[in-house]
């Protein structure tokens, strides 16, 4: 792997780690029924706006936007299981993608 490729992979991983951490906040907030749950869901939603670095994760980001939006809607409707399900799945998608990127298997479909 060239230095340029390694740097691009590092930047991509860093972006996914950012999204992962905002999803962590959102998940804990929803789980704990925090008064700030809608705010942290909104922060997670903001973290996936726009194109990711290099553009390789656009399909993943599209799925995350839909799931986080649905989670926020269900949370507003007081549907805890549906909101948790979507925010949990969002983070699982991101974390497995990070693992795949680290293994060089990111082209595979893991959900």
């Amino acid at each position, binding site marked *: 792997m060239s230095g340029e490729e390694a740097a691009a992979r590092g930047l991509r991983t860093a972006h996914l780690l950012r999204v992962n951490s905002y999803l962590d906040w959102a998940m804990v907030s929803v*789980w704990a029924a925090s008064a700030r749950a809608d705010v942290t869901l909104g922060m997670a939603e903001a973290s996936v706006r726009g194109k990711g670095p290099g553009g390789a994760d656009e399909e993943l980001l599209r*799925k995350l936007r*839909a*799931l986080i939006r*649905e989670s926020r809607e269900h949370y507003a409707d007081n549907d805890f*299981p*549906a909101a*948790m*399900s*979507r925010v*949990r*799945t969002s*983070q*699982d*998608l991101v*974390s*497995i993608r*990070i*693992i*795949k990127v680290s293994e060089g298997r990111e082209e595979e*479909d*893991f*959900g």
Partner: protein
Amino acid sequence: MAEVWDWVLSRVPPGTEIFDAHAHIGADLDGREMTATGLRERMQAAGVTRSIVFPLNDPNAREDFSGPNDTLWEAYEAYPGFFVPFFRLNPHRPYEQEFERCVERGFMGLKLHPVSQDFALDDPRAVELFRMAAGRDLPVLIHAGFAMQRIVEPLRPTLEEYPELRLIVGHSAMVEILEAVRTFGENPNVLFETSVVKAKDLYVLMRTLAPEKVCFGSDIPYGDLPSTLHATLTAAEAAGYSEDELRGLLSGNIRRWFG
């Protein structure tokens, strides 16, 4: 979520009758609840044919959980093919009579929750329950997930003293997942159950533990079948599970104990 569910369905090996090793029926102090009919409907919608079920932290548990345990038995009698009934006890309260009543009735396992009932896994009254369960060849499922801070170290002496004890580690020991694998991974009578464990944690579990030691769980009503199946399957695929190993994870591994 429909897209995620389509992916899940595409990854369940054909013919697999999914077994959920962790679900609740009844009501909880925190307001969550689930009926037998509601659970059965969720199971059927997701292709789950059998579930281990036990009481929540019921506000009407009184001293010995006999009321919630009766609710479980009624659910089992209503849907005997669907449910594998476990009873629940509180180690801080007199439990001998309820233990015997439930074993004689035909309950197939015991659920213990160290957080909800506020006991340590090496509390002498809890250890006595493990001894009684081992003596009756009764599997025990312990909560070893959210809010747990001591799992492996207090559990180790019990598993050394009662190697015949069949133990399901609920939530796969979450915060101590690697230490639990190192300590209990070779024990043939210990299974690790996956409910509401994050996919990255499950990836670590599945990369370090033999596939036949892992079983799927949902933790309904705290978890749900689509997201827990997704987490389990995406982690298993990333960890390189074969189709046969996926079948074991979703069904065969826990069916060795309960059919």
